[in-house]
């Protein structure tokens, strides 16, 4: 009997041992991932947090469908969707024909992706100030990182406000009771954009102050140009022009000698580049959760011609755009290729700027070409537009001529200096000439539709364009309804999840 009791005692004692250390036994710190309580403590944490705020810039196509050109070009009079059939990325087809509904997945993924960028920017903006400087981060770098995040937040909001108008204004991590946030007024969002950029500009570095390994980070010039654009979108011409002056006076930027060099690998981050989204060679297939969120861009495979360049043939330039070019404008050949065999509903022409022609992709679907968000030529044309609207026609003509002069590529028989053609030498004529110049200079770069909307001429232009389209294309196009199609519908899924989100008018 005694041994029996001993046996039991040994086991009971061991059991009690486990019990005694129970609190330790039940504390399992997460493996692999850091916990938020231990993060945002050091300079290197600050750098990582800021880097993550850049990531959503790259997201496109799968699950986070979006590239600027999908809405900016295809929906506009510049391009048709292309692809294999009307149902190939059918959501885009519906949008280009003003048939889009709130269930459109492209809009949903776009909306969600931008807010992920905003959330990460918020985390950097709100957490970095409390991090002490250390060997990885001095005060100047600290201020710059906060400023980078502010630029990014402004950039994501600018994308949202262009597409949807006012959206929920989120400037910090939300607690569950705050999730269902109503839409802020469009002006509130723009005020946030101005404020972020104004406070970022003093702390951002000029492009040439960065080390080579930091190429691609937000620069002072990028923030100034985005601010200029935001003012332009709100017809604050004096402010736009003033920031244009700052950019021009910084002497950081100029125009490439060759227009086409903007869209080559060698021309990446060149003198004309004010802000671009960085992409690099993507040599491996998806591994783990790759899903198109890494390194390379889908834009190249999407825009390459189907037959001669083994692409997917999206973003077809319209005849309307081709006709916009002046005779022998070299920019046309740099922008448009073809005619090539076409699948349906097109004129056979394809987009060239992002086709990376002649380059063998290492990855089936992803390519290394950076996406140009703001070029110096855009800055000059914005400047010209602002000056023209203010009434300083001389300054406007100067900047317009700077752009046209580069476009000539030394051939003085083409692209005459303003006034030319049917344009009258007055403010109205100059306005028309600048709008024409914007269309051809920035064609297929995702700007056109938003330009038409901000100029208030989208209904006339889009409906006139539709009239001249081929019968086959016309059969699908719904009329552009004024007061409706300037904005896209708030995604149905978002309105399900956040019942305080109002729908845009007439959807």
């Amino acid at each position, binding site marked *: *009997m005694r041994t029996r009791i001993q046996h039991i005692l040994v*086991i009971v004692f061991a*059991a009690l041992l*486990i*019990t005694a250390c*129970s609190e330790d036994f*039940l504390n*399992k710190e*997460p493996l*692999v*991932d*850091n*916990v*938020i309580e231990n993060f945002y403590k050091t300079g290197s944490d600050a750098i990582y947090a800021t*880097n993550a705020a*850049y*990531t959503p810039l*790259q997201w496109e196509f799968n699950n986070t469908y979006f590239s600027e050109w999908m809405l900016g070009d295809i929906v506009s009079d510049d391009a048709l969707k292309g692809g*294999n059939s*009307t*149902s190939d990325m059918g959501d885009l*087809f519906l949008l280009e024909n003003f*048939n889009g509904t709130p*269930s*459109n*997945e492209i809009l949903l993924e776009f909306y969600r992706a931008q*807010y992920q960028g*905003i959330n990460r920017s918020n*985390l950097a903006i709100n957490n970095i100030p409390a991090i002490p400087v250390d060997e990885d981060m001095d005060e100047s770098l600290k201020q710059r990182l906060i400023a980078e995040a502010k630029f990014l937040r402004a950039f994501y909001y600018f994308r949202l406000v262009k597409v949807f108008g006012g959206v929920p204004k*989120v400037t910090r991590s*939300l607690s569950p009771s705050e*999730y*269902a*946030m109503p839409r802020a007024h469009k002006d509130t969002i723009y005020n946030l954009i101005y404020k972020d950029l104004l406070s970022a500009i003093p702390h951002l570095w000029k492009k040439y102050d960065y080390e*080579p*390994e930091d*190429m691609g980070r937000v620069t002072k010039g990028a923030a100034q140009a985005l601010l200029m654009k935001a003012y332009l979108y709100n017809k604050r011409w004096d402010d736009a022009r003033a920031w244009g002056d700052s950019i021009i006076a910084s002497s950081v930027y100029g125009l490439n000698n060759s227009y086409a060099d903007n869209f080559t690998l060698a021309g990446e981050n060149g003198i004309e580049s004010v802000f671009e989204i*960085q*992409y690099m*060679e993507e040599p491996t*297939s998806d*591994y*783990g959760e790759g899903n198109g969120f*890494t390194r390379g861009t889908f834009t190249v495979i999407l825009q390459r011609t189907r*037959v*001669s360049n083994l692409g*997917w043939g999206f973003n077809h330039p319209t005849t309307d755009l081709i006709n916009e070019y002046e005779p022998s404008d070299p920019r046309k050949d740099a922008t448009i290729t073809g005619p090539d*065999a076409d699948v349906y509903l097109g004129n056979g022409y394809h987009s060239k700027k992002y086709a990376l022609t002649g380059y063998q992709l*290492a990855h*089936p*679907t992803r390519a290394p070409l950076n996406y140009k968000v703001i070029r110096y030529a855009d800055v000059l044309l914005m400047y010209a537009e602002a000056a023209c609207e203010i009434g300083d026609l001389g300054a406007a003509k100067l900047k317009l001529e700077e752009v046209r002069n580069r476009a000539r590529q030394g051939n003085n028989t083409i692209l005459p200096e303003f006034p030319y053609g049917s344009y009258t030498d007055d403010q109205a004529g100059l306005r028309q000439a600048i709008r024409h110049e914007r269309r051809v200079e920035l064609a297929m770069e995702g700007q056109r539709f938003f330009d038409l909307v901000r100029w208030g001429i989208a209904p006339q232009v889009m409906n006139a364009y539709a009239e001249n389209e081929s019968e086959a294309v016309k059969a699908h196009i719904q009329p552009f309804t004024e007061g409706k199609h300037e904005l896209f519908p708030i995604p*149905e*899924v*978002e*309105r*399900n*999840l*956040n*019942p305080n*989100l109002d729908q845009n008018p007439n959807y």
Partner: protein
Amino acid sequence: MKSRLFLTTLLSLFAFATFAQTISVSGTVISGDDKSPLPGVSIIKKGTSEGTSSDIDGKFTISVNKGATLVFSFVGYETQEIAVNMDTYLNITLNPQNLDIDEVVVIGYGTIKKSDLTGSVASISSNSIKESRVAGIDQAIQGKAAGVTVIANSGQPGSPVTVRVRGIGTVNNSDPLYVVDGVALSNIAFLNPSDIKSMEILKDASATAIYGSRGANGVILITTISGNKSSKINTTFDFYTGIQNKWRTLDMMNREQYAAFKGYDPNDATYSSFSDWVYGNFNLVNNPYIPTDINYEQYDTDWQEVVFRDNAQISNFHFAADGGNETSSYALSLGYFNQEGIIIASNFKRLTFRVNTSHMLSKYIKVGENLSFSNSRNRGVATNNENYSVLNSAIAFAPWDPVKYPNGRITPSTTTNLINPISMIENQNPKEEWNRLVGNFFVDITPIKGLTFKSDVGTDISYGDARNFKPKYYISANDYMANNFLEHSYQKYFSWQWENTVTYKHTFKDKHDITLLAGMTAQEGTWDFLGASKTHIPNESPNLWYLDAATQNATAGGRAWEWSMLSYLGRLHYSYASRYMLTLTMRRDGSSRFGANNKWGMFPSAALGWNVHQESFFANLADKINTLKVTLSWGQIGNQEIGNYAFTTLINGGTTFVGYVFGVPQALIAGAAPLSNANKDLKWESTEQSNFGIDLAALNNRLSLTADYYIKDTKDMLVAVPVPGNVGLRYNPIVNAGSLRNKGFEFTAEFKQTHGDFSYSVGGNFTTVKNKVISLGGGEDIYSAPFFGEFLTRTRKGDPIGSFYGYEIAGIFQDKYDVEEYVNSKGQQIQPTANPGDFKFVNQNDDNKIDANDKVNLGSPIPKFTYGFNASLNYKSVDFQIFFQGVYGNKIFNGNKYFTEGDGYTNLSVDMLNAWSGKGTSNTLPNPAGSANNRLASSRYIEDGSYLRLKNVQLGYTLPDATAKRIGLSRLRVYVAATNLLTITKYTGFDPEIGVTNGLDLGVDRGTYPQARTFTIGATVNI
């Protein structure tokens, strides 16, 4: 296991009795049901450990003291005690333990007499499991027990099965806990069904609360084979083999029909031939991937025939032996299962070994182990994904496309961007292998009568190995690999558990039976993953599918998690004169999955039982009704299946999802950000369950009935709730989000009868489940099941969980007037942009448009009731079993229709020949060329998912004993059988058994791998 425990108890009870005067007694033991001799019956002198066992003819001889009592026992038969007086020859008839109310039932951390049971427990016999002839035990219990719903997720061999006990208890993980020989496990894929001795499903709170935070979804207790105490060695060899086939194909257009649909007119002079039309109409002339000289007229491919495999093989071998003596017993087995899938290339193979032993070290110490090893290998194919599935692709491909061109290259689609299903199979080589060791070691100490101390150490060790090789190939612009690619990963899971329990049983004054249980358990699990990939293998031979053979683009990754639990448990069972029973249980669980504020949870239960038939006032009914028991139980149980670190917000570091490209030259630079938000105040989800049950046996125990009514309320549900995009998260955070009620009736009935050589039994079970969301804690509706830009299901207060939401269809606009006349009460047009041939959607809110506010509840994917019924007949040597299983009242979202009744860029169902093509042509099938809105989630996709399936039918023949003996066997049975022979359903997709993708994504058919119809022949040999 039960008989062992029983014997141990008996032995210790009478260890000190002594007798004198020895006589020799001999005799024969026969079986009460077929009068055949019973070999291997244990014959023990009561109060000693001495004894013998019957020989192959059921004969025995034993020396006993006069006046002693002999105990005859045999697995599956009632134990009989005979006092030895004058007779020296005994004819003993052992009766099968059929409806014996004194059957012992396995419950959590112990056993109990069935008559004393107060909880709701369903038992499934090993025979009934073996009859199913499937790879997994979970599949074998489909339709076998009331209150247990089993849904095959996929017909893919080796794929998991969804098991639900008493409805869907939570929007979260609703899988039951499996306990195999005492080891708690979350999946039992390693188990060979033939190794199972008994299975008990614990359903109500009284039964499951002893498992605390893991009991809310029910507990399935499995006991595997054990040895016997006779010196006789029983060996059994089971074998079956068979063929499997698809049981249904969809009726798609053939070449002529689809070509005509796409506008081909043989009389049109524009095209010189059919091939010319294909090249011209689909712009293939300059397509570099398509040869210029294909004669499309010679092809009319039936793509379903291409991807389905005819006569896919299935076979199973199982060898088992058991034996032992007074001090040691053992059971061992070897099994091999091999199944080809009915979709080409898919297959599953599993090898299993098992050794279970137990040993009496002394009269009061028993040690033992149960050890199993399994090796499984499988190769899967892509299914159940609306964007990438072999079946979806097969029904969508144009019939004029050949599978491969004459030069051997796989064809791209001529009509759209489809990927050839053969490319999904041949250009992927996913292989998976698992090695898994599950076992436990135990010590039982019984120092004094009635007191048992048990210590048990169990472990589950799994190693997984997955690899995929993709060759370099070009099929089309959207299906190619510029370089070949190899990925290879290992993962290992290690968990251990240690349980210590003390049980004390005592009877006071003959009437008061008390059983007390107290214990503690600790469990810990760790998982670790390592994977790598590379490209550019110079030669694509399988011999080189190793990372060192690849030359470029090396990547590697590794991750891990761990969890732990510590618990204290206790149970009191009290019975008064076998008439009134009370059971109280309590468990306190601590889990690493909760934050410091909510680490511990307490889970109590209470139950009462009354054996009415023991009452004196019942005496005059006792000859008609053998048993009448009523039980009432209540308890609270928990659920902790929420992921390991949900209590804290994690910072996702590295490059995936958070990296960005910087620098000259460019490089991918790491970043860090949270991808979700944690909820520090996350508390335990708890389930409160009440149960009322009645057990009845009548007509000499030939008829038995069990009925239960239960209400199961889940509170503080832990859910990953989709949050608005403006929160900016990549993954949905987990919150305590409200409560859910499941309630229903469960009935089980069985009737048995024997007339001479003929015996039969019929039985059935019937379960109703009513599922309702009581509240979402003030939260918003939960949207789930994404499908082409919409959520298909909503979880909303007052509805069943995960109900389908979509538009109601009122018909089709026949002409312009129809469109114009479709107005609301203010006279505004509702669908002004619709064209004739488009759907007219019901405008639910009388506004002037169709939008998400017009979506209504279109039904629930949860069946109103599920049922199974079986019959078995025996006549002399012939036996016959038949088993039906079914569900009723659920809806399925038939996602196939998105393609088969789609826009015509992919092949269509022949039904679409009757689609709208002009006024009056159809009011149900819209113009395929019409608005994209026609494809929105609507009542057109919702179908009745009820089915009745002849799951199993089997005809067997057992060789007469004499004949069997002549060829040296003790028993030989051969049989033929069929599975899924007949399915009655209105559902039009491939199969009405639609699995669960995750949580609330129920009943959505995204191209599910269908169940096979199987014919098998088999034999069971006992030596």
